[in-house]
């Protein structure tokens, strides 16, 4: 049997589907608990529904990018693995690297045009899994403990709690954006115009109290920045 028939077989779809169902289940119970707790502490339905709507709108653009990645992965590892890996921890770059290392370990060099075999496919699957559980294991083990580390760092100064997340955001997105800024190519154009559009949209939405513009703001900035870079 060709490896791709196994890769696209019903048992593989089921295995992938069960794993994805778990991710979905976790998101749903976390959402329900957050919504209910939000109401208990005095947030309004409008506030939270509006937040959910804007998260929904914002998720579409990045999800389409992930989808194009999924379709490129699908060619090599079949539908179920591509579907599962990109709904689980991981990214296209990571998965493609894992597939490459996994196949290479049994002597199949995909980059040089070797054909994938059953064993190479299985090796790629194991590599994708083992390469990514590190994130899940470490974060599952430490999430609650990191909270107490942070508390100890704060030493009761809760005013810092509002400053640290923003500082961390600026640091991590500063480092994500700086790679594109120093590249001096179309990515640089996209990063700068995305930022400029965001600045305009945020100011406008706040000055004129436009709720819809707040909800759509990030989507406008990321598609706007993308279009400017593509056209220039």
């Amino acid at each position, binding site marked *: 049997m060709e490896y791709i028939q196994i890769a696209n077989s019903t048992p593989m779809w089921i295995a992938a589907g069960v794993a994805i169902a778990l991710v979905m289940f976790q998101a749903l119970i976390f959402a329900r608990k957050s919504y209910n707790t939000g109401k208990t502490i005095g947030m309004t339905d409008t506030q939270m529904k509006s937040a959910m709507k804007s998260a929904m709108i914002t998720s579409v653009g990045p999800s389409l990018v992930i989808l194009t990645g999924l379709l490129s992965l699908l060619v090599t590892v079949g539908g179920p693995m591509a579907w599962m890996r990109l709904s689980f921890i991981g990214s296209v770059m990571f998965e493609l690297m894992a597939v490459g290392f996994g196949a290479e370990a049994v002597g199949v060099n995909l980059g040089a045009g070797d054909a994938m075999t059953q064993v190479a496919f299985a090796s790629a699957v194991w590599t994708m899994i083992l390469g990514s559980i590190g994130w899940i294991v470490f974060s599952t083990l430490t999430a609650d403990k990191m909270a107490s580390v*942070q508390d100890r760092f704060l030493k009761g100064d809760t005013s810092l709690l509002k400053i640290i997340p923003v500082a961390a955001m600026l640091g991590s997105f500063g480092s994500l954006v700086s790679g594109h800024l120093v590249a001096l190519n179309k990515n640089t154009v996209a990063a700068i115009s995305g930022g400029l559009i965001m600045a305009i949209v945020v100011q406008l939405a706040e000055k004129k109290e436009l709720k819809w513009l707040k909800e759509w703001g990030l989507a406008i900035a990321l598609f706007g920045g993308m279009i400017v870079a593509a056209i220039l």
Partner: protein
Amino acid sequence: MSDKRRVYEKDYLPYIVRYGKATGWLAVALSFGPAVVLAVIYGVLPPSAAVFAAFIAMASAVGINWFVEPISYFPIIGVAGTYLAFISGNISNLRIPAAAIAQKVAGVEPGTTEGNIVATLGMAVSVVINIAILTIGVFAGNSILVRLPEHILEAFDYLLPALFGAIFVQFALMRLKLAPIALGIALSLTLAVNAGWFNFLPGRPTYLITLGAVFGTIAIATSMHKREARRD
């Protein structure tokens, strides 16, 4: 402790930690599903030496991120976000943007009780949307992809840089003094890594940029805050 804080710490967090741990360990188990299917149903098992070699290759390429990412994203996404994001992945390109826009639209500040709850809500929504889009995409498959003109697919490459620029600006507007510092640290570390100053470290040490920018900015923000507090 305020009532809000009590609800958050005595009811919300324990629930999140209990289900977060359960779903985390279940996710580790279920991610092996496809490997088990290959072995049990199709009798395809790669040689363990090959899997080990491929795992070592992956660990040296990305292994440091298993620890660096959960630690450096924790101040942003908190306990619930860590459980959620390190199963579902796509943290910087999808989870955090969804969380950030949800907070902005709901009018709550990062780091507060309301902020944490709304961020979790936004991330959970993004998981649902993301999986829905990928599921439609994987079943509609390549038929969509081949119909899209080449230049539209190329344009998608610019969506992420635009997103990173936009998110950075959204938070820069909240802390105008801190933003140039964060970007300055990130840019200088990026240039230093690109120039090969850190080549003695294993892999391509881009994690240094994130670590340095996140914790450098947190340190500077903390000392700025303490100085301001002393002046008041």
